[in-house]
């Protein structure tokens, strides 16, 4: 290049660096790549170990060696004693998560659509919803428990816990919907409206199908965040507990491979939910 010859004429000849730019760039890539892979291993290894140990034999302990391979601890989980029967909590968690998912989905779509209306105070509204992410479960749960005591409300998994779970998952669904609406082209709606559709029809027939990925995303957030919630549930669930609470209670009593079995099972359920939603998204993209 012209520039380089020019500058070479002015400066004293520089010593060649040990590695040129491209080599150095490749070196950084390798270092960062190794770090990333190591971290991913670090992140996944405990989950794999937990799943592996859940298949240990009847005499298997809570760490290696496994003492045989069996479904003993899953069977134990299935015909559980009254003390640690995980089935009712599992059922409650599942129903609660479903209800939470549907509510979060509807509220997120409504709130994001409202944000598009740029009503007075929409900035304040945005922060109010974001507060749900910022406020930690410990404070929200504890505060809600105090509120219930003051008002004399009995806490239960299907009333108070439901209310609090939705407030936790709503911001995630809301942000997902906002992101989708940001990329949405209002001209499409405009076309429908010009062609004589009323606002509701245009929204239902044009807007909603286009933002469907966000709707599915908010369903997933609503389900998984409620299904896994511990801190908020701890204060607002009452006597009939949900699954994470049952897991923690069992951990306080004794750590057994049974706990690993339930852990592996719930993780697997969560993975299924994610895969299901991914397939739904993929199907949507294919259909278009």
């Amino acid at each position, binding site marked *: 290049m012209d*520039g380089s010859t020019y500058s070479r004429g002015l400066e004293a000849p520089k010593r060649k660096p040990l590695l040129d*730019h491209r080599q150095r*760039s490749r070196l950084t*890539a390798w270092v*960062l*790549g190794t*770090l*990333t892979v190591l971290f*991913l291993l*670090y992140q*996944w290894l405990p*989950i794999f170990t*937990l799943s592996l*140990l859940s298949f240990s034999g009847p005499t298997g302990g*809570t*760490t*290696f060696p496994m003492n045989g391979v069996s479904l003993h601890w899953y069977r134990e989980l299935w015909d559980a004693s009254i003390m640690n029967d995980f089935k009712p909590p599992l059922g409650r968690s599942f129903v609660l998560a479903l209800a939470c998912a549907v509510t979060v989905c509807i509220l997120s779509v*409504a709130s994001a*659509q*409202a944000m*598009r*209306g*740029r*009503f007075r105070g*929409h900035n304040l509204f945005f922060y*109010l*919803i974001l*507060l*749900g992410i*910022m406020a*930690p479960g*410990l*404070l*929200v749960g*504890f*505060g*809600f428990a*105090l509120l219930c*005591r003051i008002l004399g409300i009995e806490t239960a998994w299907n009333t108070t816990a439901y*209310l609090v779970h939705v407030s936790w998952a*709503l911001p995630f669904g*809301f942000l997902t919907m906002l992101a989708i609406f940001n990329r949405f082209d*209002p001209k499409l*709606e*405009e076309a429908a*409206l010009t062609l004589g559709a009323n*606002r509701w029809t*245009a*929204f239902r027939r044009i*807007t909603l199908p286009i933002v469907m990925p966000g709707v599915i995303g908010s369903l997933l957030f609503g389900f998984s965040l409620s299904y*896994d919630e511990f*801190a908020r549930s701890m*204060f607002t669930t009452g006597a009939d507990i949900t699954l*994470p609470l049952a897991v923690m209670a069992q*951990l306080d009593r004794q750590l057994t491979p049974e706990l690993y079995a339930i*852990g592996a099972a719930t993780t697997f359920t*969560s*993975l299924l*939910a*994610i895969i299901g939603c991914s397939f739904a998204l993929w199907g949507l993209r294919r259909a278009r």
Partner: protein
Amino acid sequence: MSTIRARSPAAYWLALPATLWMMAAVVVPVGMIVWVSFWGGRAFSPDSPLTFDNYNRFFANRTYLGLVLETLRHTATMMAICGVLGYAIAYFLVVKVRSARWRTVLFLAFVIPFWTSALIRAIAWVPFLGVNGVINQMLLATGLAEKPVEVFLYSRTGISMAQVSLYTLMASGPVVYMLAQIPPALREAAMTLKAPPVTVFRRVIFPLTLPGVVIGQVLVFLNVMADFATVQTIGGNKIALLPNLVINFYEGAQHRAAAVVAVLLMLCMLAGVAAALRVVDIRRLGAT
């Protein structure tokens, strides 16, 4: 023209349910904590006189003050580790990975655990950390240690190890988002102007990702400050941080003391968020 008119009454009606929900489930409960923390007397009743006694009692206790400092120190450590790791991983995924397919695979491997239970992921560390745990077995097998190291389970080290795996994603996610928004032309321009790669990173790339870094740090800060579940799972009853104090007081029916600790936690968090907002204007994020 769109399916919602600017400043139309419809926008208010759409925003109303979410507003009421967040007020009832987040804002009012948090207000309750502040109120209860000033209650005098002994009975749990809203008629209690308001005093500073509860705060005086807390600050008179040296152990509690030490706990505040320890919690802050632990949180700062986590922010540093998760921040550096998270940035490195984000940079690798967005900048260094060229193939879109590999980027998706690695990114999914990174993100998916977020949709599974944090409680289960914390429990999954238990078989790793014990005296007979996986880490010790590996250390013994490779001859790196001659007898089992006891510092992992029921220790701050173990808690930190688990929390790094839980919260690095939170430090990384916003950085990924910001990095992906930087147009490649910007880097090329800087390179054409003969800036060495380190300078390009320091003067161009890093300042552009700073909002992401700060938001990530805020998320890690808020989550670690309030994470009592991991501390309880891995630390057993031997280690306690500020959030565990809230639980202990709550379970001992000392609501006023629990409220005082919760208010202190809240003040620390507000201070942290305020400091972060001085560095970046979160509202401008959407515009970039």
